């Protein structure tokens, strides 16, 4: 065969199979463009000059690797599908006298052309869209934008290398598949006898069990720290369960319906149920993939959207005032009102000297130690070890006078009475209780730790113990910290707030009589300087969530599209038979519609169910991000589900059009 013939034949067969190949190439282009943008953003000047750039760069680089991993698997999967559909064509080539080597040569050129076109168009798109992506990120992170245009050569190179490797892998897979099959195999591959689907009870039940375990973990995890690890365990269980259930359980379900003669032998159900059993058998895996991808998109979007929406709230919770001074002392004595008043005086003096007006002052003292709940009482961490890290609490003791001032309540505790502020559910609501060896009476238990800005930054579950006299409690010898907070607002502009915060910090480090006031450590933070960090984190996460959602959504759409094409070709002969046997066009349309609807909305339904069950555990995880607002999270989930469902429906409408075109 003349060499120049290979490229020609390759181009020809891509063109002839355009219904299969153009969407594949389009997907490659999108993946490459997104990959380039993600890679170039990491080195974007706007980001490298950002104070919080560490966070966002790490987030973007994680996203890049996740995407590379996903893209490889996904393109591999779709390419295998394309080759499978074309095996008959290869068989025909072989019968017409082309050796296997010739076929592989043609296929090589096909992959080469696809790679060249996708890389060229993908990179161009990426470079063109990069600026838009950068502006979007700048906007989310609330940083000033620059308008330099340019191409990031190293990112472009990285993209070309990564995707060339993927394409090479795709070709190797083709090589493997064609090499394995004999000519007659190739010719017959499409019409191999079709076994009637038999549901596998074991796999179906296992699927339900796995889903149950995943959901159970999510529902019962009560503590943010353990939620981190358990979340991924739950995710794996849910993924495995979804696959098993959709592959096997759905067929079982159809079989059960068929056993019910009264239901099955009805005009409306007869054809739908039996075809559905077949469809599910072949498409279970595809449906499960769609379901998992949809779930991921929904989880990512709603979580990052909620975090971003809650960024301001988290910031205000963590830094209740514009300027936040925190001091450490060495003993209970230094926490006395006398001493803290003196310190407040120092702050006010400095403010007056700088012409700063102080308002909304919020002062409180606390004694911090670590303890754990052993089932009956709270024991000091210095006395024994808790069985697991989940059982530890940050115990924050504070006086009722501070509490009354901050909350505006009028609490009056007796000497042995306490009020507990915590979200922990295991501690008792009231009654006699032992804390650090002292028996006290719990007056009540509330979920109010947000009153204390510092408490929201704790990793361990904080338990705020309000007592009548802070000095009287028998604190342990070790692991005890004495804190004083002096937080206040000013009349300054944001940049002046940061400047005054620095001045105050230096003043406490250098000028103040630390020994005289009993200060062992001092730190002043302004809310403004932390705002940049907060937005770098939450804006970055939202951005990544959006980009990965685009990628996953694209993958979902492509799987849906291929499924429609596939089923269209398979159903075509079935339809003409039904027509001949006496089914009217409208009856056929009705039956097809109901099947398509079921097949398409089952994954979405499962995705939403998964999402609902994921809510409790993600809600716990969000606490680690200072986001304690379940209502915001619930709303952002609802909004994401609505938007995604709308989009999904549109995709369904468009792709089912392709299906009808093939069938009729």
């Amino acid at each position, binding site marked *: 065969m003349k060499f120049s013939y290979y490229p020609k034949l390759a181009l020809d067969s891509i063109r002839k199979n355009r219904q299969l190949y153009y969407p594949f190439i389009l997907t490659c282009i999108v993946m490459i463009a997104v990959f380039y943008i993600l890679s170039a953003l990491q080195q974007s000047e706007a980001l490298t000059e950002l104070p919080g750039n560490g966070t966002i760069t790490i987030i973007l680089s994680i996203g890049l690797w996740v995407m590379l991993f996903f893209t490889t698997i996904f393109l591999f999967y779709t390419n295998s599908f394309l080759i499978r559909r074309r095996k008959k064509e290869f068989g025909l080539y072989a019968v017409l006298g082309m050796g296997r080597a010739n076929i592989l040569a043609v296929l090589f050129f096909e992959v080469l052309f696809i790679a060249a076109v996708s890389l060229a168009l993908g990179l161009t798109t990426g470079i063109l869209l990069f600026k838009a992506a950068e502006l979007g990120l700048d906007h989310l992170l609330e940083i000033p934008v620059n308008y330099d245009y340019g191409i990031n050569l190293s990112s472009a190179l990285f993209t070309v290398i990564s995707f060339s490797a993927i394409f090479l892998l795709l070709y190797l897979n083709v090589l493997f598949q064609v090499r394995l099959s004999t000519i007659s195999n190739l010719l017959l591959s499409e019409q191999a006898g079709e076994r009637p689907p038999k549901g596998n009870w074991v796999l179906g039940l296992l699927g339900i069990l796995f889903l149950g375990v995943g959901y159970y973990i999510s529902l019962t995890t009560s503590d943010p720290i353990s939620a981190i690890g358990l979340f991924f365990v739950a995710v794996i269980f849910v993924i495995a369960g979804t696959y098993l259930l959709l592959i096997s359980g759905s067929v079982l379900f159809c079989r059960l319906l068929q056993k019910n*003669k009264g239901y099955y032998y009805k005009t409306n159900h007869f054809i739908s149920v039996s075809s559905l059993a077949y469809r599910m058998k072949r498409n279970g895996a595809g449906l499960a993939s769609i379901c998992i991808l949809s779930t991921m998109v929904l989880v990512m979007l709603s979580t990052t959207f909620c975090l971003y929406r809650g960024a301001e709230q988290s910031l205000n919770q963590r830094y209740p005032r514009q300027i936040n001074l925190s001091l450490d002392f060495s003993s209970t004595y230094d926490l006395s009102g006398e001493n803290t008043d003196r310190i407040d005086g120092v702050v006010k003096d400095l403010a007056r000297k700088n012409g700063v007006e102080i308002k909304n002052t919020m002062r409180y003292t606390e004694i911090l130690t670590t303890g754990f709940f052993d089932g009956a009482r709270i024991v000091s961490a210095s006395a024994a070890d808790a069985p697991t890290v989940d059982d530890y609490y940050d115990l924050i003791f504070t006086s009722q006078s501070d509490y009354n001032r901050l909350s505006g309540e009028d609490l009056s505790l007796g000497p042995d009475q306490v009020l507990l502020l915590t979200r922990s559910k295991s501690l008792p609501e009231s009654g006699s209780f032992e804390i650090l060896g002292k028996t006290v009476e719990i007056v009540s238990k509330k979920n109010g730790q947000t009153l204390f800005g510092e408490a929201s930054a704790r990793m361990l579950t904080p338990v705020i113990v309000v007592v009548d006299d802070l000095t009287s409690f028998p604190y342990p010898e070790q692991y005890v910290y004495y804190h004083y907070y002096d937080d206040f607002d000013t009349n300054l502009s944001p940049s002046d707030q940061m400047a005054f915060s620095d001045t105050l910090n230096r003043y406490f480090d250098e000028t103040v009589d630390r020994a005289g006031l009993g200060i062992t450590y001092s730190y002043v933070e302004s809310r403004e300087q932390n705002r940049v960090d907060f937005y770098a984190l939450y804006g970055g996460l939202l951005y990544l969530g959006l980009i990965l959602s685009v990628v996953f959504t694209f993958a979902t759409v492509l799987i849906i599209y291929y499924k429609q094409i596939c089923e269209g070709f398979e159903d075509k002969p079935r339809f003409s038979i039904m027509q001949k046997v*006496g089914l*009217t066009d409208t009856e056929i349309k009705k039956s097809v519609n109901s099947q398509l609807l079921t097949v398409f909305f089952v994954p979405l339904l499962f995705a939403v169910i998964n999402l609902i069950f994921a809510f409790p555990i993600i809600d716990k995880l969000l606490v680690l991000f200072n986001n304690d607002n379940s209502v915001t999270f619930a709303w952002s989930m609802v909004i994401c589900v609505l938007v995604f469902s709308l989009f999904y429906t549109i995709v369904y409408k468009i792709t089912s059009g392709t299906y009808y075109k093939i069938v009729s």
Partner: protein
Amino acid sequence: MSLLDVRDLKKTYTTRFGANQVQALKEVSFSVEPGEFIAIMGESGSGKTTLLNALAALDKPSDGKIYLEGQDLSGIKDKDLSKFRRNNLGFVFQDFNLLDTFSIEDNILLPLVLSGMDYVPMRQRLLPVAEKLGITDILKKYPYEVSGGQKQRAAVARALITGPKLILADEPTGALDSKSSDELLSLFEAINASGQTILMVTHSAKAASKASRVLFIKDGKIYHQIYRGGDSSAAFYKKISDTLILLGTQEHEV
């Protein structure tokens, strides 16, 4: 009254660009009495399939009328056609046309389910039909698990189960080996003997020799017809072969 009456049937196809008109059927007229077993023979392109499609109301004739028990097919509304076919006609095709998503039983029951019948009476109808066709023990199997002959018998069962006025068979032995063909044709004879009217299109002289009357169609016209009368199948086969030779048909097969 004749069961089926075909009068001056014409069908003209226009080629895609409208340049040529092809006359597939030119003034075909014949009638079928109740209980007849008629074979229509002709070579490829003679208009057999066009005729069958017109009889099945799958295709509209350009001119002429078809009456089934006096009812004019062209007078039936499009939306009622499927129901009409389901209730009055039974089909047997060359390539069986069984649905691979159904078991043999469900394939046979399909027309009844479409007519909205309940399961118990359906079952009562199924058993004798399956018994007659010798497929009782494969009812639970799927099409891919059974032989071609069994598939075709299932298809015949599907055609019979509605108790149609007329069975239309399109090359029913075309995809079968000779043993299965013989079995199927004997079945047709038996069914016909029990009073079922059958109209079969074929180009196998052997298949046609089981019929009670053979119509020869050539270039879109009924060219000739012969009756079996009291002939044995072998003698009738000889007559058919002679006629085919006379017609200059080379394509007939044994």
